[in-house]
């Protein structure tokens, strides 16, 4: 069987064991103002930052910035003015969604990414299939770098999770950057203070 054959060949051919580095061995970059850095980086990769004081501002903002009449949904409770998503039997039915609002667990300054797990997406495809993605983020959760991020994630148990950094994009045609490849064309992050 190939499994045994491969494992045998690996065992035979792998060199003497070399240990893992003992911890990081260097101090990763930490920003004085992680929220500002996060905003700058996210903007640089095509995302948008909107500072809000209350979740009641979200629906108004979305409706003035995206085409009213299309489907705006959220997986969050207590967002007035937005449709609470009822999960369809077939996730393909999510295709018509114009704007989806979800929440992220935390953000990372060095790359503008937010961490979202299946639990908060309801369905894995939601943040990818919508035309526009909106995310509520508590600025107090923003970390400087990815080492801190994985320390925070720790042994968290998830079926699916992702770092999302800005709108879906491609530069495959002559390196011209185009936002909105297969996933959302925009990403708006509501920093809720």
């Amino acid at each position, binding site marked *: 069987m*190939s499994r045994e054959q*491969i494992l045998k060949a690996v065992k035979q051919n792998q060199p003497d064991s070399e240990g893992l580095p003992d911890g990081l061995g260097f101090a990763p970059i930490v920003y004085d103002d992680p929220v500002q850095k996060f905003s700058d980086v996210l903007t640089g990769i095509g995302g948008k930052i909107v500072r809000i004081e209350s979740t009641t501002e979200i629906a108004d903002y979305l409706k003035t910035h995206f085409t009213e009449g299309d489907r705006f949904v959220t997986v969050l409770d207590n967002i007035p003015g937005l449709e609470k998503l009822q999960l369809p039997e077939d996730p393909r039915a999510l295709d018509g969604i114009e704007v989806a609002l979800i929440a992220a667990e935390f953000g990372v300054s060095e790359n503008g990414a937010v961490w979202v797990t299946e639990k908060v997406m309801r369905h894995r495809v939601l943040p990818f*299939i919508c035309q526009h993605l909106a995310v509520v983020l508590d600025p107090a959760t923003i970390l400087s770098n990815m080492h801190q991020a994985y320390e925070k994630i720790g042994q968290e148990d998830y079926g699916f999770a992702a770092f999302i*950094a800005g709108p879906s994009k*491609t530069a*495959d045609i002559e390196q011209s950057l185009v936002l909105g490849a297969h996933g959302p064309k925009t990403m708006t992050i509501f920093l809720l203070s």
Partner: protein
Amino acid sequence: MVNHVSLSETFNKDEERVNWHDETLWWIRQKRDKAAWQIPEWEELREMASQIKMNTLSNLHDYLLQFEKNALANGIVVHWAADADEHNKIVYDILTKNKVERIVKSKSMLTEECHLNHFLAEKGIDVIDTDLGERIVQLADEAPSHIVLPCIHKKKEEIGELFHRFLGTPEGNADPQFLTAAARIHLREKFMTRRVAITGVNFAIAETGEFVICTNEGNADMGAHLSDIHIACMGIEKLIPQRTHLSVFLRLLARSATGQPVTTYSSHFSKPLAGQELHIVLVDNGRTRQLGRPDFRNSLKCIRCGACMNTCPVYRRSGGHSYHNAISGPIGAILAPNLDMKEYADLPFASTLCGSCSNVCPVKIDIHQQLYKWRQVLTKEGHSPAAKTAAMKVMAGTLSRPGLYRFAGKAGRWFMRNIPWLTNNRLNPWYKQREMPAPPKESFGEWFKKMRK
């Protein structure tokens, strides 16, 4: 004969195009530099990544078992494939068992290495590549020319023409924004209607049995999350020991590849969706052989960022297809001979050994040193032209006999001065586009003897 020399000579017939190709890739190299300079600990990060991968390779047996155990516990079906053929058959079996004939696939260099598309096409399976660049080369019936930027060799006008022919866009429209929008509509229909998605894997974590896929377009996620069956194909060297190690690799990958701080999506797949089947195919295809070559095993550290291609002055001026292998550029040139020494004997010579590749490599593979070492191996194994061997023997004979060397040098310079057409002719590849150096009457050795003794 088709080899790097002939293919790059053809590529160089259109100098404007070479300039464009070179400048496009150099621009990406510059973006990479800028991104790296944002991270003061960049060099330490590379060293750490290299050490983690060394630990992985030196304990690969146990990590593979650990990964398998955890993946199974997560509800993932794990397959093992000794070679490309077995990999392709495993995928095909899953499809036939489920009576599926139309699938979507996101970018996976492993499936390119295994020629999966060709294999499935012969069996009547319709595969749609969903990465925009890959879809473009698929429509053009070409192979990707770059592991991260599959159609970097194509101009937008050529892409507009392809889209006009296959997707019905208006003739003459070559606007990237417009063409991307057309592809979005074309491919969304595929995502919505196909039941099986194949993806690659960027990192698989032994400790948790999960794997991570990095894309900018979101095509891997669209395919995987809308499918009934998700098949993820990976080389066995894609493992890393722990989840926390992702912090190191995700900091390096996109910065090295395109100069982005991170890819738009870094998706962590741990368990199948409710009702979905999730398969992983672990592929050897020569990797264990490479693991057994002490001089070359480091090449298995590669995380497929493509930085070595973007920086390579030869790649930029010869194009990815000149490497006639799924993985092109410097890294391709040290991986390919392991697959087939005879077929790829030319690739380690397609380099000036300038060393820039080793310097940009985020996992510090000594690429240019391995190119040098492959040259020795290939020559010893008899993969050099006989004429070259004969010439080298004459050269070595001359250079090891000082008297003969002095005589030959003096005679050579005399001929160059007195009968210049002996060297200044079309048969001399130096002279084709370069003048010969002016031969002096006296060598330094002759001068020294006269002046100082």
